[in-house]
């Protein structure tokens, strides 16, 4: 299992930096928002927490589509399925490595981007907390989506379509916590619900993903 994690991280860094790129996408989405809604700083600061959450979600989503696709195409998944490692564990590892290379950097970069969107000073801590609690769920749910669409050519967009509704609860609670925090309120309730969702998905989703993957491979 450590071997798989190690290999995935190595591939992420080597293949043009899966790591830096998730981040870059997040950066760019955030940068494009003022171009599209206009440069007024009060408006930007109102929508900042929402935009950052949406940006993080899209950055996760975009890097998902090759999470399993490459391994499928070159036959690695077939071989992994016949290996002694249970598929549930393999997929959890994949989700973990996705989070380490995408979710974690997003959490760390969010404050800087908050600056650019004039996020209220109170909001930073809530933004970081909500992203830190929420992004693991995004990776785990995303792995499920990737497993569902792995055999399908041009599966990338289909996957987005399937995954986005699954992301809705996470997004609602996460953005709510960040928004309340930015308005100087207490965002504890949504944050707790968010943590609940994350724990639940981490515990259960790998089984669904593995089941689905076994069906696609057949």
């Amino acid at each position, binding site marked *: 299992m450590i071997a798989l994690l190690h290999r995935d991280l190595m591939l992420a860094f080597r293949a043009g930096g899966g790591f830096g*790129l998730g981040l870059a996408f997040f950066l760019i989405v955030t940068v494009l928002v003022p171009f599209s809604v206009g440069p007024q*700083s009060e408006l930007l600061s109102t929508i900042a927490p929402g935009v950052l959450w949406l940006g993080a979600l899209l950055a996760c989503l975009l890097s998902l589509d090759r999470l399993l696709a490459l391994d499928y195409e070159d036959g690695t998944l077939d071989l992994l399925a016949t290996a002694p490692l249970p598929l549930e564990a393999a997929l959890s590892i994949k989700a973990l490595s996705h989070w380490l290379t995408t979710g974690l950097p997003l959490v760390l970069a969010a404050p800087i981007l908050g*600056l650019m969107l004039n996020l209220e000073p109170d909001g930073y801590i809530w933004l970081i907390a909500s992203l830190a609690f929420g992004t693991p769920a995004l990776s785990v749910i995303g792995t499920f989506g990737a497993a569902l669409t792995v055999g399908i050519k041009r599966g990338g967009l289909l996957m987005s379509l399937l995954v986005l509704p699954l992301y809705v609860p996470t997004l609602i609670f996460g953005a709510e916590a960040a928004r309340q925090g930015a308005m100087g309120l207490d965002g504890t309730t949504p944050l707790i619900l968010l943590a609940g969702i994350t724990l639940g998905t981490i515990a259960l989703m790998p089984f669904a993903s593995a089941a689905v993957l076994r069906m696609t491979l057949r």
Partner: protein
Amino acid sequence: MSLWEYANPVKFLGLSARVQPFLWAAATICVVVGLIWGFFATPDDYRQGSTVKIIYLHVPAALMAINAWFMMLVASLIWLIRRHHVSALAAKAAAPVGITMTLIALVTGAIWGQPMWGTWWAWDPRLTSFLILFLFYLGYIALWEAVEDPDTAADLTSVLCLVGSVFAVLSRYAVKFWNQGLHQGTSVPMATGGRTVSDVFFYPLAISMVGFGLLFLALVLYRTGTEIRLRRARALLARRKREM
């Protein structure tokens, strides 16, 4: 003897080894003198207070950020047209220097913005186009890293640099059209033919600008040498492997 002969890696290494000590010395002297003069020996501005001292970092860095991209553009063209490896590698070597300069301009600008405009960041055209420049640098460097074959990487990044330059200029106008902004206009004498910064600020600023320019040159020469050595090591290794 034609200038192009220095496009031979070995000749280049020789020449740059001879020039570099002087460059580094001159760069260090200029940067140190400019910054120390600026920091310790200039008065505060009546409106901006002591923050005016940031200008000695901000303006030279901003200038070099743009010039570095321009130099990369020229080097890319030389590579595409005459296929001199040194120029491709020089472009590759310049990009990290350019992105650092961009970052310094952005950071010092942001720090300056807090007392002057009351915000760290505003979507001012000059600031915004710098951010876009930063993105171009990032993409350029990432593309160099991602492509396996060095010649293909040089080709692809050169075209990206070309196309990117066109779009950077377009974005500059687009951004100006989109928002009028807070940032002051240019006052560098080369650009306007007159000077608007008073002499007390101007001399240290000019020295600092020269210093940053020399520092850029020295760094690019040194880094190009590194790239050449790496490339040579790779070439030797590849052949060694085939022999076995």
